[in-house]
């Protein structure tokens, strides 16, 4: 269980989060949504414990997240960053192996052999054939898969994803979120993902948290949260909400101000 209590945070002098509170239960997949610049990534940084809020506190299993030693926290929580991994000179296997860092002692060795964990992660992301390739020889989509494999090798119980589908085409978007979903079910992970696409968020998330004006404007299941009224208020645009023909999840249909000319 992760909980943010009345957090305030500024970015370059601008207050982004103003007394935001929200909580995330174990074993569920959460989506954080909201318009640009509302502080979605900022909230994720606070939840990861790497940055501290200006005021308020983040709790992980009832204990302040700031009180955890860094390596212990990294064994429980892994983060997929916005923008993915840079094209470095390390091989795919080496980068995935970096996910084992929190388990290594100061000599760089582990108590148990991690080869199998790394191998499993590579296979799960379809990277076995690319394991020996250098990162700077891969495409953006392939690097994103390496980033996810590294997350798996880290064996966390909580994963935070910051806009994981940006820069991916729709095929890869669905593939990536399917992988995350099945991995999450299999190991009962808590997943908190910042998502831009409301329709994807609705299809994959158990619950959504909507950020608006520095606070959580709404939280609940997609069908509870995604209403034309809320979208009108938060995004300042009008939209229709219809049920997905296969899953029944709410899907947003945007409405242009001017209709195309009718014949």
């Amino acid at each position, binding site marked *: 269980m992760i909980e943010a209590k009345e957090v305030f945070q500024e970015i370059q002098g601008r207050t982004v989060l103003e007394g935001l509170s929200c909580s995330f239960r174990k074993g569920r997949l959460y989506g954080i949504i909201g318009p640009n610049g509302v502080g979605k990534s900022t909230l994720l940084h606070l939840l990861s414990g790497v940055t501290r809020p200006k005021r308020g506190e983040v709790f992980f299993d009832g204990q302040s997240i700031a009180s955890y030693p860094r390596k*212990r926290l990294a064994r429980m929580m892994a983060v997929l960053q916005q923008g993915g991994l840079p094209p470095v000179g390390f091989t795919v296997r080496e980068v995935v192996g970096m996910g084992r860092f929190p388990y290594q002692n100061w000599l760089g060795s582990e108590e148990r052999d991690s080869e199998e964990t790394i191998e499993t992660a590579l296979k799960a992301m379809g990277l076995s054939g690319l394991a020996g390739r250098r990162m700077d020889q891969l495409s953006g989509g392939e690097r994103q898969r390496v980033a996810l494999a590294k997350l798996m090798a880290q064996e966390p119980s909580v994963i935070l994803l910051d806009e994981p589908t940006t820069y991916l085409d729709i095929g890869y978007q669905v593939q990536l979120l399917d992988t995350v979903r099945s991995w999450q079910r299999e190991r009962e992970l808590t997943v908190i993902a910042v998502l831009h696409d409301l329709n994807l968020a609705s299809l994959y998330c158990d619950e959504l948290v909507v950020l608006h004006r520095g606070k959580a404007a709404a939280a609940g299941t997609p069908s509870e949260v995604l209403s034309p009224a809320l979208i009108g208020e938060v995004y300042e645009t009008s939209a229709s909400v219809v049920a997905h023909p296969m899953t029944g999840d709410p899907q947003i249909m945007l409405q242009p101000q001017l209709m195309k000319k009718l014949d």
Partner: protein
Amino acid sequence: MLLLAVSIVVSLSIGSAGISVADVWDILLRQLPWLADEQSAHTPGEIAIITQVRLSRVLLAVLVGACLALAGAGFQGVLRNPLADPYTLGVASGSSVGAAFIILFGLQAALGIWTIPLVAFTTGTVTLFGVFWLSRSKGAMQIETLILSGVILQSFLGAFVSFMVSLSQGVVNQIMFWLMGSLAMRSWDNLYMLLPFLALGLPLLLFYAQALNLFVLGERQAAHLGVHVERTKLVVLIASTLLTAAAVSVSGVIGFVGLVVPHLIRLLAGPDYRLIIPLSAIGGGTFVLWADTLARTALSPKEIPLGVVTALIGAPFFAYLLHRRKLKEGSPS
């Protein structure tokens, strides 16, 4: 390692005194206690040249090179800046201001043999933070801006050293020493002074090698993997500055060693800092040893300042790296 050993052997064997290679080794081997039984056929002068001058100078070159290359690897790793090096960051010049001040005003005795390196370390650190402060804009540090600030401070501090040397009726020779570096007229004492810094700096950097590997992915990424980012930065910067200060205290400012060596090692051994750090120490030792051998023999008996030799190799290399970076940025993705 083998290359370093061979280089030491070759470098010991050649010099301006006109002693034959066979004689050099005869003298050296006779220094070993179990071989010293026979009467030596060599003059005391020859023996002194080899044991007091040449051997110490060769070993000193190796140590200075190791320190500078290690410092370069450390700076490059923690700043994620391929152009960083004790010289281009201005740290070497900063250290030389402190060291020159102490030597020229005769304050060496204040804290024993540690006076010079400690003062050099202090001024070097101040310079480093000065460079950071100059190059910071809205919290982020641009790679080129950082190096530009470093080069600006480096030339300012170089001028300052020259000014101090002229004030104290020093000869041009001394100015050359501080600005271009030299290993001439050093002794075993300098060697003993340098050794503890290397013995401390190398393990310290090795300890953080894996963390530096994770830094390559970005500081935040490293933090998410459980690295103490601020602590790592502080320790590696301090260790690198300390190594620079120690090297500068005995040899003056020798440029580009910390730039060239880690890059060559990276080309040969890949991006893993667990290899780059120890290999840079060995490679730096070899590089400076060859540069110094060249400096003392090329125009023998005249000496070329050591920094001239390293700059002749290093500056074009620096330009090449800068050019390659520009090409990379220009290309899409």
